[in-house]
């Protein structure tokens, strides 16, 4: 048996977590809308406003991750179709599905001084895990972040 969890309870999150979905149409204005939707969930789930600096930073990282996933779906996969957030007391999972079967692949070599290739680099560095899964009409790209 594990030690009792002494962290403050993450409000609004029942056993098993909570899922929120945002259906998306088109590519216009979608990136900001996805961040707004995520910001609301993070507030409801008490990840935002962060009490400690670390908590605040993790929540900001999540907004950045959402932005990168949705941007990639818009640029490389004909547009994001759905944003899914799944929060538990332990971690947050973000899934962005699109209509393309093509998989994300980090560009190599990574070049800090040139435009391009920074999205997956940021995703790799800020998430505890990320991947891509086929879906009936495309795929979804997901990231996970541990609760602060």
């Amino acid at each position, binding site marked *: 048996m594990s030690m009792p969890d002494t962290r403050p309870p993450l409000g609004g999150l*029942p056993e*098993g*977590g*909570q*899922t*929120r*979905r*945002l*259906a*998306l*149409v*088109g*590519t*216009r*204005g979608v990136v900001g*809308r996805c961040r707004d*939707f995520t910001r609301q969930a993070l507030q409801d789930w008490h990840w935002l406003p962060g009490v400690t600096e670390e908590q605040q930073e993790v929540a900001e990282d999540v907004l950045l991750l959402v932005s990168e996933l949705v941007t990639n779906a*818009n*640029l490389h996969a*004909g*547009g994001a179709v759905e944003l899914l957030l799944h929060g538990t007391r332990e971690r947050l999972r973000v899934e962005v599905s699109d209509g393309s079967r093509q998989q994300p692949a980090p560009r190599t070599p990574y070049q800090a001084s*040139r*435009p*391009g290739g920074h999205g997956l680099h940021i995703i790799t560095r800020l998430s505890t895990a990320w991947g891509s899964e086929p879906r009936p009409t495309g795929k979804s790209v997901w990231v996970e972040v541990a609760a602060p």
Partner: protein
Amino acid sequence: MNRVSAAAEPPVGSEFTVSSRRTGTSVVVAVVGELDLDTVQALTSELATAVDDRGIRAIVVDCQGLSFCDSTGLNALLAARLRAEGQGVAVSLAAVPAATSRMFGITGADTVFQLYPDVETALGAA
């Protein structure tokens, strides 16, 4: 598991997508939808990637599906052309629809770009 669903906002009237396919040393960049300030970045990124691709000598922008284009779209094409020129890559446009063709006439873009009736002709000339 506790599910909360949020409805999408009403669909916007337009979308814009860009996709590329490579044939030999050419890249065909197909644009579909309305190209303007809100959507241009997808084209800018795709053209930048194509220009930077070492093996590429020619970029053909397939405009068949371009349902709208304003000066922001033109600027993106002109900026890509300037960058491409510096690297010895030619940028041409294929199948430009009537409305955009008139805009290109007004702005002089028709004298700046090689225009072709379709992608095949453009690739043949490349």
